[in-house]
């Protein structure tokens, strides 16, 4: 890596640390350098690693894919930091985004060669980490902006998680195409549209949960007195469920039982989860004499009651 490019990298970091804080404080000097040009220089440095055609040239490999991911993550993270600072973000959000940027710089430091690039990236990483304390927290911002930036940060971390989990894995498991799709999702997560979409999705899910909870409270089941036979059957079924304690012996039995009850028994890999499902079934069917009889028969066919 040339000295010029190293200097450019440093300038970007310095801007991200000090330039923005003064701008945000309203009235600091205009940076005496062109940030966009510096980012361009950085893109040139990473261009061969991040170019998709280079990943496929001569056959895709794990190393080439991971270099592409690492390079793109660094570029996206630096640009994202620049973007949220332009939104007058609060310090805590910048800190959170900085942490992710530092992480990606460290990953790039591992994935990219030559050594000079690694050294330069590590230097940026160290500077960025130290810079957070230098950011002044007194700036103006729109009241909605913190929520949107928080949503962007959260979404970006979620997507980043699947990218990091994919890196290092064989191409058959984490393909180059999947990596590119995830990187696109990572970019989208760091946009205001992505943040609004995430908030809408979260709000919808919360509303659905609350609605179900309200329905559960308001729509109570009417209790009917059971016959002594149904009561005894319920008790025997309960005893059988409590008796399932040996994971080696009882898990396969429970899986078969759940399949007989119309569920995908094999999807229950854990005996406790399987028992939880059986308890829920008993709670659901244990008020109706006919359903209790049917449930008892299934338990009996599986040699769990007599």
């Amino acid at each position: 890596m040339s000295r010029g490019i190293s200097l450019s990298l440093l300038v970007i970091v310095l801007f991200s640390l000090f330039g923005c804080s003064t701008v945000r404080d309203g009235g600091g000097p205009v940076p005496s350098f062109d940030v966009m040009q510096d980012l361009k220089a950085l893109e040139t440095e990473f261009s061969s690693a991040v170019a998709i055609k280079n990943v496929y040239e001569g056959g895709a490999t794990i190393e080439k894919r991971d270099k592409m991911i690492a390079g793109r993550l660094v570029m996206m993270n630096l640009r994202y930091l620049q973007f949220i600072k332009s939104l007058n973000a609060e310090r805590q959000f910048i800190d959170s985004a900085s942490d992710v940027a530092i992480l990606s710089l460290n990953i790039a430091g591992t994935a990219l060669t030559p050594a000079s690039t690694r050294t330069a990236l590590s230097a940026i990483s160290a500077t960025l980490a130290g810079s957070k304390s230098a950011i002044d927290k007194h700036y103006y911002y729109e009241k909605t902006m913190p929520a949107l930036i928080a949503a962007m940060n959260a979404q970006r971390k979620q997507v980043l998680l699947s990218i990091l989990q994919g890196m290092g894995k064989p191409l058959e498991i984490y393909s180059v195409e999947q990596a590119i799709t995830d990187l696109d999702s990572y970019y989208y997560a760091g946009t205001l549209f992505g943040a609004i979409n995430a908030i809408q999705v979260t709000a919808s899910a919360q509303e659905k949960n609350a609605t179900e909870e309200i329905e559960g409270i308001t729509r109570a089941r009417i209790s009917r007195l059971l016959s002594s036979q149904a009561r005894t059957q319920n008790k025997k079924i309960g005893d059988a469920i409590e008796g399932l304690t040996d994971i080696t012996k009882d898990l396969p039995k429970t899986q078969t039982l759940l399949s007989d009850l119309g569920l995908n028994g094999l999807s229950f890999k854990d005996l406790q989860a399987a028992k939880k499902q059986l308890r829920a079934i008993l709670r659901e069917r244990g008020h109706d004499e006919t359903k209790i009889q049917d449930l008892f028969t299934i338990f009996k066919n599986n040699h769990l009651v007599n």
Partner: protein
Amino acid sequence: MSMYYIDISGQFSIDQITQALQDEENLFSEFKDSTVITADDLSVLNHARFAECDTRPIKPIIVLLEGSTAPAGTSRFWNGTMVIGGTSRTVAAFR
């Protein structure tokens, strides 16, 4: 711990209410408390709240009128109003 509700008829006797609560607790649940509600058809119900549990209660629940002597080996864990045989009464639950 998930909660759910069971509505018990306000026409039940106190023994029938105890039986209904015991039947419910046999389904891996634990009675928590109860309030009186009026259904859409204007019938009065005991709106009993239960918690879903991993095990069934070791001792069965017993509901008695407030002021009754606690059955041997039990202690009172809840008291409140229930409608019994169509009449509002103060009761206590023992276990």
